[in-house]
């Protein structure tokens, strides 16, 4: 077994144990209703976290996604309010826009050899500012198509609702897994995260890969914005502040190395669900402040960073042992 996969197993184990503990206290938590809600409530986060996972695997970071989600919501709401375009057309416009935005950031990061942190930080302000420009107020979305989207769900056994947006997230995760683990693009991401100079020597097309991965992250942020607008039924420029950090937290809790080169997209799904589970527990408990979510996430993050640090040291000392 690869030591690299250990954080993934740890993530899955923590999720299962946490679920077990919740179940012991509130047996109702193990129902398809709760699971359905878990998927629905965290759909937007899961989608954006898939994009973030690939970016982090390549050794980068994308701080713009929270703002892009907010921008997407406002963009959709304003366009549906002021024009007679069909939502699907608006979606297509939006996705093209956010994908181009991501690609542009990737282009700058590669061409100017600038840190991703700075470029995407600028992107974060830019997107948030653009959202304010469109509207300062929360804009409700009223469109028959939206109502259809919001009502679309499959009934699972036990009356749980698997909503369209929940399914969208699962499909995104699947797409992300295939992209990361079964394509040359995915291997290139791992290669870049493992060492840029070496990756170049091995024939990775660095510029193209960097641009593509930020474009993908932009696409995911746009999709996440659509899902979020379906979820909330409105567009608001102050929404999803700090979501990029929550997404990064989910990725790290999911076992991906923050410095890149190691991790699994599936782990990110488990990371998102773990964070959702904590929230669900707090709702079930009813007496706890919702801020406990943040505290538990903080502790989990620390735990995972320690675990990965330990693993890196372990593999190093084992190597030294081999050499002796």
């Amino acid at each position, binding site marked *: 077994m*690869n*030591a*690299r996969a250990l954080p993934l197993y740890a993530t899955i184990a923590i999720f299962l144990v946490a679920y077990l503990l919740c179940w012991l206290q509130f047996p109702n938590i193990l129902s398809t209703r709760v699971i359905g809600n878990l998927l629905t409530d965290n759909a937007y986060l899961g989608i954006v976290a898939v994009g973030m996972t690939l970016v982090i695997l390549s050794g980068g970071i994308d701080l713009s996604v929270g703002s892009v989600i907010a921008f997407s919501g406002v963009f959709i709401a304003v366009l549906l309010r002021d024009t007679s375009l069909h939502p699907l057309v608006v979606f297509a416009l939006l996705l093209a826009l956010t994908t181009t935005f991501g690609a542009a950031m990737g282009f700058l990061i590669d061409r100017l050899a600038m840190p991703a942190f700075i470029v995407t930080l600028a992107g974060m302000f830019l997107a948030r500012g653009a959202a304010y420009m469109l509207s300062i107020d929360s804009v409700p979305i009223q469109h028959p198509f939206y109502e259809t989207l919001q009502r679309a769900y499959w009934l699972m056994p036990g009356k749980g609702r698997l909503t369209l947006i929940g399914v969208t997230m699962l499909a995104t995760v699947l797409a992300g897994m*295939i992209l990361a683990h*079964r*394509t*040359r693009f995915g*291997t290139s991401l*791992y*290669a870049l*995260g*493992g*060492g840029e100079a*070496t*990756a170049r*020597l*091995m*024939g990775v097309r660095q510029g193209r890969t960097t641009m593509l991965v930020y474009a993908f992250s932009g696409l995911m942020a746009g999709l996440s914005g659509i899902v979020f607008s379906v979820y909330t039924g409105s567009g608001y420029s102050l929404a999803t502040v700090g979501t990029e950090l929550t997404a990064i937290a989910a990725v790290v809790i999911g076992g991906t190395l923050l410095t890149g*080169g*190691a991790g699994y997209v599936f782990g990110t799904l488990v990371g998102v669900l773990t964070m959702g589970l904590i929230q669900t527990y707090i709702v079930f408990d009813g007496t706890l402040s919702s801020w406990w979510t943040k505290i538990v996430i903080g502790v989990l993050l620390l735990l995972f960073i320690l675990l990965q640090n330990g693993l890196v040291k372990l*593999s190093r000392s*084992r*190597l*030294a042992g*081999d*050499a*002796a």
Partner: protein
Amino acid sequence: MLLSIRSLTKTFPGTRALDAVDFDLAAGEVHALLGENGAGKSTLIKCLTGAYLRDGGTITLDAAPIDPKSTVEAQDLGIGTVYQEVNLLPNLTVAQNLIFGREPRRFGLIDNRAMRAEARAMLAQYGLDIDVSRDLGSYSVAIQQIIAIARAVALSGKVLILDEPTASLDAREVQMVFEVVRGLRARGLGIIFVSHFLDQVFELSDRITVLRNGRKITTERTADLDRMALIEHMLGRALEDEILHPAPEAAAEHAPLLEFQGFGRNGMIAPFDLKIGAGEVVGLAGLLGAGRTESAQLMFGTPPAQDGTARDGSGPLDLHSPRAAIAAGFGFVPEDRKTDGIIADLSIRENIILGLQARQGWARPIPRAEQNRLADDFIRRLDIRTSGREKPIGELSGGNQQKAVLARWLAMNPRFLILDEPTRGIDVGAHAEILRLIHDLTDAGMSLLVISSEIDELVAVADRVIVVRDRRHVAELTGPRVTADAIMRAIATPEEAA
């Protein structure tokens, strides 16, 4: 000829790196390319691999002229390269590393099963049967190096350039890699072998070409060349005999300076006793990972010893941290100067005064005039070759960087200096100078602990050699008993313990 280079010329601003160099490589031969740093070896290789564009001359491969403009293009033409640092990705699996860029695909997706099978088949040619789905980083450097060779051969297949492939391997691993190289030679590849290790060159190569100052000096069959002649070709002058073949002197009496008793730490080195005399050079010999560096690190407090005491003539010494060790008059020149020694962007002057300033405290800056004086003094005394003291140290050659790091410690005037692999990765000329410097230092009364993989070097400088094996001090050789033969035997067999 498989590959022939005619009057290859490459000029950089100010220097002619290659001056009408001819070089021939036959199929099925290992051709060593030797020369001091700056001789033009790397430039020649970079022109071959397309990393540099040549200014003049022709390169023909299989009788067809070639003009590679990138490493990828060179690879496609048939020229593959393996570097000193394994240029593969430790975080990818062995199979991914081997097949990267040529993954078998099914329905547009990578076919992992076929990829693993292909990778296994590739490695089987080299007698390597390992789990290709594990991360490359979980294997030893030697195996990684063989995997790098396998990848290079698979991609190119005519010419293989090995640039210092054995620098971070121990003796047993070197043999593993050599077996692979011999196998490739038998398969008819032309192999260019660059190495600082002359023993390895003599062991492996069929022919040797020596470059000096951008010119080809000679190409000879290895069997016709003796070591002395080779070194003279490389240096363009005769080496001083005493450095190469020192007569073992009788052990001089040294006044005791330091005494370590039961010094040890779990997982690093078993407790050892060690006495060091004033002006004495103690060598530490052993294989890579045997506990040489670890012994030295304990003495310097990184990390501190768990057991044991250290004392000098006046009482016990506190060595719990490098800071405390420096206060006790210790110095440590680490093995990896790039990461632990130099600060590449700072000037030579700044690098030299760094230690002195740190000891004095940053609140009391050393006056600039004093800094200049110190820097110039050491540049002159150690013969650091540079255009001036303000040149960033990263632009110096390895040997000169090493001298500057040494100068930093000498500026602090320690009584006990630890040198970990002081000559690693530097050329023959600088090598001899550093050995001479060691002699000068001890003449001035400084005590030294020298760690080295090169046994000849220890024999040349050490009054006494401690042999380390399996994280234990196993033997101590003194005076006339310090011979390469005795050290080798002590490393190899436990019964040799004195």
